[in-house]
């Protein structure tokens, strides 16, 4: 193969064509366009980095073997994510079947979350980084991740595709081969469960820092084309 770093960047369509003609190198270039998001989704959906590695490998090998069947009826990302989400659901269901492996306990400092966060803290050497605030943020992040991890797998998947990947519900419905109504319900239920799980944080946010969360909401969740915040509710 030896394609890496030799071939100049190409458009996705060209790479797909070459991969369909059997070029593993072109396929690897395609992988690099999407694999960060694939791995992120896998990490959200399965229990460990090892399992996420398995999902990553299985997904791309499956895509490689069946890329000739890709007809361009959806985007390549949608096609690829269909493979990935099916594998994630399979893995998540297998996990759910293993009663002898409980979810990592809250506050388990040797878990991956804390490691990643600690590494991030150490790497982040900007003068404005304040350890107390950083640890506070770490705690919020840990609580959110824990709450997301406890969502039923399908709701977790919809939440991850919307929240982490920034996909619109219509694209999520296409990936999951589900109706828009089903996907909307999933997102609604996921949000409600998270709301209940994070209620103490919600009230703390309301009391401690009025208006602090709202700009983030506006930035992150504002509908395309929306001009101003909602009247009368600021």
């Amino acid at each position: 193969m030896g394609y890496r770093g030799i071939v100049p960047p190409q458009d996705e369509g060209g790479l797909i064509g070459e991969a369909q003609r059997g070029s593993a190198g072109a396929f690897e270039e395609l992988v690099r366009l999407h694999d960060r998001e694939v791995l992120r989704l896998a990490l959200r959906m399965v229990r460990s980095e090892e399992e996420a590695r398995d999902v990553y490998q299985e997904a791309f090998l499956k895509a490689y073997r069946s890329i000739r069947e890709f007809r361009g009826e959806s985007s390549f990302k949608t096609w690829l994510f269909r493979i990935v989400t099916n594998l994630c659901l399979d893995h998540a269901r297998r996990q759910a079947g293993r009663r002898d492996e409980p979810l990592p306990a809250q506050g388990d400092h040797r878990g991956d979350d804390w490691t990643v966060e600690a590494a991030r803290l150490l790497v982040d050497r900007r003068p404005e980084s304040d350890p107390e605030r950083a640890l506070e943020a770490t705690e919020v992040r840990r609580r959110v991740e824990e709450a997301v991890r406890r969502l039923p797998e399908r709701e977790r998947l919809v939440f991850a595709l919307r929240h982490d990947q920034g996909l619109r519900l219509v694209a999520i419905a296409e990936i999951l081969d589900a109706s828009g109504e089903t996907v909307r319900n999933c997102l609604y239920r996921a949000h409600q469960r998270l709301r209940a799980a994070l209620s103490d944080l919600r009230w703390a946010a309301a009391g401690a820092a009025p208006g602090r969360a709202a700009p983030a909401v506006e930035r992150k969740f504002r509908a395309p084309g929306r001009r101003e915040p909602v009247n009368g509710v600021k």
Partner: protein
Amino acid sequence: MMSCESNRERIILMIYGEVEESARLDLEAHLATCAACAAVFEDERRTAGILASAPMDGPPEALLQRCRDDLHRALEKNSSRGRVEGARAGALSRRLWWSPAWATALLVAGFAVGRAFPGAGLPSLGHRPEPATEGAATIANVDFHENDPLSDRVSLTYDTLLRTSLSGTASDPRIRRVLVDTVRDNRNAGLRLEALDVLRRHVDDRDVRQALLRAVREDENAGARLKALEALTGRAAGDPEVRGAIVQALLKDPNPGVRVRAIDALKDTRGPETLAVLRRLAEQDPNEYVRQRSAALVSEMLPQGTVR
């Protein structure tokens, strides 16, 4: 007229930017006049704010790299197997009666004839084979693609394993390459340790550094992880990737000796973030000595006024 009961789902979808423009305008008009729904909106927006303030990080670079390496190897294996299987399938369709035993017998006979009559070639190939390129190499993994006992024509693929000697210093890229491969792939822990001993003086080389980082994270032998960690210690202050690997060892390595060495490796990376990690470790590490060592370093750091 909107029913307040049925608005909650719509409100959430609006926060996610997932309602039609006309429905959004209706809902906004309603929220402006209905205090109960406005309160629900504010509450849901707060939840969304918390979720938005804790986005999931992208995957760790080292993990992504490992995934890419694994996939690269799998694709290589996949495509070479595909080629061989494809060729083999073609040969089978041409010679359905062919069997590997028969092929092997013919090959062995061919070599024997070749050795007994060095001047005799394979006329149907049109040229002499070139055994000299193989020299004294060991031949392994023979695959037959085509065989015709009537004409003696054979087409096959095989691996060669040729023992080679090198001597010099690890400044020689060829020697460094062998050592890096040994650290990375050799199953013999003793050999990995020997290679690490030599490579520790060459951490400026990117490949060496990557091999050492991988050893810190993944080597199953605690001695090898320790050696790799020691080799990288000097770079902890200036290289975020090295710091990340040391923190990972600090928090995840099952061997307390490695964790203690990781604490020592962080001595020169003084700063509020290091302090936060060490404090946490001083309270929560399962090993008492590791807790004490972390606490000692924390108290050593505090009076110097670098972290307040």
